[in-house]
């Protein structure tokens, strides 16, 4: 196992070493110690590494991740897994705002709570939050799934496209064009799969599904006065 101590190595050194690994690397196990809230830890990885970060991180941890499995033994700052493409990221603590923003793929699991704008403009990523999420989550979400075991803040799924939102707890309010929808067998299957993959102990039957009413997709002449 490779171990990098951020008390003695620079962030640039860490990210260069991680980014240099090829898809067939033998050096799969990595550990980062003393992250001390630093920004941009483990961004742009492009190999099936297993990375353990021992402590809390700052902004943009695991951004643009492809293939790597990353675990953070702590909390993460704003923009964790921003634009993630694939792989999986597991946060043991809380996540700050816009977790998983614009993510195209992969699985982001947050054991604690996520703040506002979780999954904003998500484009295929799966996000499972074991705690609560803040306001404006999944704003303009295009595809992928957001699963929340706790409660959701105000304006959930505002201007939503085709992302699916599964919420077990209370929703403070729904955003424009977001409605509760029927939970069909295919949705239960997707949800069960994500709960299992993210290690969540929850019953599919306790969740409600929310999605787009699709009324904002096309210009409506009756709304002309609103612009």
């Amino acid at each position, binding site marked *: 196992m490779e171990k990098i101590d951020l008390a003695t190595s620079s962030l640039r050194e860490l990210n260069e070493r991680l980014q240099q690994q090829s898809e067939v690397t033998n050096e799969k196990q990595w550990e980062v110690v003393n992250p001390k809230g630093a920004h941009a830890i483990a961004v742009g990885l492009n190999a099936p590494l297993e990375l353990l970060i021992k402590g809390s991180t*700052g902004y943009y941890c695991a951004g643009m991740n492809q293939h790597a499995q990353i675990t953070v033994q702590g909390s993460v700052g704003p923009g964790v897994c921003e634009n993630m493409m694939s792989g999986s990221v597991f946060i043991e603590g809380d996540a700050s*705002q816009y977790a998983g923003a614009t993510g195209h793929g992969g699985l982001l699991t947050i054991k604690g709570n996520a*703040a*506002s704008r979780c999954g904003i403009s998500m484009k295929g990523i799966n996000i499972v939050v074991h705690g609560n999420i803040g306001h404006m989550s999944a704003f303009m979400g295009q595809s992928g799934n957001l699963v929340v075991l706790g409660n959701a803040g105000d304006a959930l799924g505002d201007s939503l496209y085709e992302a699916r939102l599964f919420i077990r707890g209370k929703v403070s309010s729904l955003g424009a064009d977001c409605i509760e929808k029927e939970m069909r067998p295919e949705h239960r299957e997707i949800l069960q799969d994500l709960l299992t993959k993210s290690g969540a102990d929850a019953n599919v039957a306790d969740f409600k599904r929310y999605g787009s009413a699709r009324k904002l997709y096309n210009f409506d002449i009756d709304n002309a006065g609103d612009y």
Partner: protein
Amino acid sequence: MCGIVGLFLKDKSLEPELGSLLTDMLVTMSDRGPDSAGIAIYNNLKKQGSKITIQSMNPVEDFKEIKAQLTQLSGADLEVRIVDTHAIITLDSNYKDKIKQILKSSFANLRIMSIGDSIEIYKEVGLPEEVADRFELSKMVGSHGVGHTRMATESAVTTLGAHPFSTGEDQCLVHNGSLSNHNSLRRKLARLGVNCETDNDTEVAAAYITHKMNDGFNLGDALNAGISDLDGFYTFLVGTKNGFGVLRDPIACKPAVLAETEQYVAFGSEYRALVNLPNIDHAKIWEPEPATVYFWEH
């Protein structure tokens, strides 16, 4: 962008370390605000009357005879401690208003940074580390303090445009964000007799809080009223004689992290600012909710 830090001590044994802990937090936030920095430190551990912090662009000249001049004009028994471009006047509380009048009428070169029983404010243009070194912030002792690293948006990079802003006795406010209704609110407050000295948006927020507290609101109620009256982006940290309070706007774009242990409550714009605090690994750490007031008092 801007950086905010704050530390409220519950454990008196940490009071001698307040300056060094806050300095470390402040310098860590240099990336968020490299143009100027400031700190408000609350220290009335010896119950020594009142303090007025003054600032001069030309301290060698302006502070040379200041003690004798003020004594002669006021008849007060006072002490003056010069710290770089700032000086702290310590005096009997009964002479506070008189000295304030004298400073305003007879010393045009001097600026009053703060007045109160506990508060001292130090702020200057420059990198936070340089500002901290100039004032030897790391040696300061106190019960609580707030600090700010500035990246200017709404007004010029000047000493007076730096935070914290103090508009009432023992009160100060630091701000990350920008207010959009500060000009109209400044005019409204002026009509009520509350005047701001700069064009800065944050000073208006500070004056607003002071105005509300003068009307009998406590810090929590004053901040709550601000949610409807202050428009824009903000994370505020407000210092008072006994403690500090935190408020984020309802959209909550501007970052904020709180940490609490049995020894202290700490605030940082980023978790990075808190990592060297004692026992931080066992602290309760959370992000303050939007439009929700948090405050701690001794």
